[in-house]
């Protein structure tokens, strides 16, 4: 029993260190595990951002449940001026319509949108399909299968919206990420996938359409969805910074200025270029309106496709 006392003493000592360490650091929550696509951008964003604010900051990865766990943590920190979230599109504009969450689009102080990449509708280069029209025709006998990086993700929604709004016959097969879905596409387990330029460039893929309101530079011969006779569908993979509600206007302004300066810095631009992240800054008001609009649009898609609870 003596050893039990020793170990309890050791544990008690360790317990006190945490209290001593808690200082006024800025915590940047990334709702994904370290090393993921969002995390990499967040970690390149963080040094310049904290320099602009003049504080020490720490990136904390809080992963799980389609990024909603980390996002909920930001929402639940109401009034805390030392916590922000580096958020992906899905956690803010899709998940709240999919399941019961402790937050909604109104639970945040919006700071800025940092990057945004339009998604492409793609097939494997080894397939003989070269146009969306041909894809629709060939799907009539035997429906195609489209992959996604998980149920309720942007790739899923983009394709679900396409299927609802066109004659394309295709069914959904979710994977645990873009990587496994690419593996399935390479093995012809699935035939269609919607994802960003990064994916398009890294694998043997052929773009058939782009989910944006105008053609994308560098892909001038890829038509937009609207040009193909569908309603305009706008699906982009974007990221942005949010703070909890209840922080002072002054603090929110500091965040917004620091974010703008970071996104415009050479350091971040060089990184974004390398990582093929398309810088698309939006200020606090524009970002808030944008998220609200995307939230409504995604909700409509989910309802049309019968995916809401």
């Amino acid at each position: 029993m003596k050893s039990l006392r020793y170990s309890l003493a050791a544990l008690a000592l360790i317990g006190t260190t945490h209290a001593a360490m808690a200082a006024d650091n800025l915590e940047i929550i990334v709702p994904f595990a370290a090393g993921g696509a969002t995390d990499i951008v967040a970690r390149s964003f963080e040094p310049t951002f904290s320099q602009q604010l003049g504080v020490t900051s720490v990136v904390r990865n809080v992963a799980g449940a389609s990024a909603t766990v980390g996002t909920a943590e930001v929402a639940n920190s109401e009034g805390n001026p030392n916590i922000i979230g580096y958020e992906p599109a899905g956690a803010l504009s899709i998940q709240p319509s999919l399941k019961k969450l402790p937050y909604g689009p109104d639970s945040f102080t919006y700071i800025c949108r940092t990057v945004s990449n339009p998604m492409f509708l793609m097939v494997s280069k080894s397939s003989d399909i070269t146009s969306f029209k041909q894809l629709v025709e060939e799907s009539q006998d035997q429906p195609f299968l489209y992959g996604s990086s998980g149920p309720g993700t942007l790739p899923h929604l983009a394709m679900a919206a396409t299927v609802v709004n066109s004659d394309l016959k295709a069914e959904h097969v979710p994977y645990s990420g873009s990587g496994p879905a690419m593996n399935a596409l390479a093995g012809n387990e699935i035939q269609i996938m919607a994802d960003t330029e990064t994916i398009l460039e890294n694998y043997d893929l052929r773009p058939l359409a782009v989910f944006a309101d105008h053609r994308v530079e560098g892909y001038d011969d890829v038509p937009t969805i609207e040009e193909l006779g569908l309603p305009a569908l706008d699906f982009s993979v974007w990221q942005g910074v949010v703070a909890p509600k209840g922080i002072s206007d002054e603090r929110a302004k500091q965040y917004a200025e620091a974010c703008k300066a970071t996104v415009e810095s050479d350091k971040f631009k060089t990184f974004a270029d390398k990582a093929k992240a398309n810088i698309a800054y939006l200020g606090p008001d524009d970002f808030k309106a944008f998220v609200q609009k995307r939230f409504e649009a995604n909700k409509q898609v989910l309802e049309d496709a019968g995916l809401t609870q």
Partner: protein
Amino acid sequence: MDVILAAVGDAFTWQALLAIVIGTWAGIIIGGLPGLGSVVGLTIFLPFTFGMDVITSMALLIGVYCGSVYGGSITAILINTPGTPQSAATTFDGYPMTQQGRVDEALGWATFASFFGGVLSCVLLIFCAPQLAKFAVNFGSIEVFALVCLAMLCIVGISRGSLLKGLVCGMMGFFFSMVGSDPITGADRFTFGTYALSSGLDLIPVVVGAFALSEVFVRFSSRDEEATTIPEARLRFPGLRDIGRRLIELVRGSFIGSFVGALPGTGAAAAAFISYAAAQKLSPRRANLGKGEPDGIIASESSNNAVTGSAFIPTLALGIPGDVVTAMMMGAMVIHGITPGVRLMQDQAQTVYALFVVLIIVNVAMLVLSKPSIGLFRYLFKLPLGFVMGGIVMFSFIGAVSVRGNPLDLVVAALTGILAYVLRRGGYPLAPLVIGMVLGPALESSLRRGLLISRGDFLSFFTHSGIATTLFVLIGLFLIWTVTAGVLEWRARAATRRKAASAQPVSE
């Protein structure tokens, strides 16, 4: 040829070599501490790599990765607590050897098998990456389902003692893996309306609870003198003759690890269990497995370290990371402007070859650094047992929470610890619980995805592809073999019992 020479030059810079030494050593220590595993190690070191060039940063990360997979075996052998889930199968024979006073031999085999597996998989990676990657692409959902079924069948035999108790724990692990979001529909399952549970139960907190915490509880509640001392950690490498005698075990384990590592969505923990199951069927010394037989350590450690090399096959050849660890490595490459994908081998041949060289140096460094690292653990474990156990509890909780940063994982680890303690007291084996959690998600999602692809027709699974048919035939043969062997054994036992009964009339 020039490219290869240039690549060797890239890998032999002092920065890269220093990174390898630091990374590998830190990896072994991190892997050895229960709760802290490969993912935590990489998370700690990832931010340091931002200021380095690409080869140096990859050298650091590969060092941490390979080191941690090996390091897990040290505590598995010394205190029956795998430092990482990948080394869970090492406890089966490693700890019995320790109890028999053969700790130096056990650590020697674990070290050598790790080195052997690591190097062999590097060689495979260098020469067969494109072919293996092409083969791995053919492993779609239905093929993976067949493979996991086969693996689960083999693994049923792993549980020592009662088959029923093993199955109970296996199903429990399978059930644990189902908590959280449904992989196909995204709906919440078994969360009882609590939002905190919707992210599911992570493997690390469960492993930490099942092995590390329950071990602490067992030791504290035991009045046995043996349970309160930890033997001195020493390392003795096996002699050449011993290696020759067990070469086939080393090669088999390494090949199984290399193969499983190249497939998407499996990983080192699964590879180690599959390899152990294979040794149980094929090793000439299989009767001793589970009682302190080096073959068991070899099976587990050669295969889990072989995964380190082959996990890079899909990552480098296709840009598809096979597991969380390679996904993190891929992230590190992207930061340095190298995007793995189908064109990487052509566009960045020099970098890729330099990575191969780094992988081999890391494995050599691991062999060299094993001795000082084990020395460090020797000093750590000389502390009063209370401090050691307190430290294990602390690191377990740090490891449990740092994977996802979710405080729920602390509760999960503590509750699993209590559950595991009760199970151990009742003679239930814990390995099946971990196996259920490791293979459960793969089994479920591959089956359900397979059904989506075949449009609900399960019978077409059997004829889906050559690979699938072969695997299902193997499953059939395995079942027939097991049942026949069981019946024969039962008959033989019945016959001897009859003989014994007729020779010696019952006295009662």
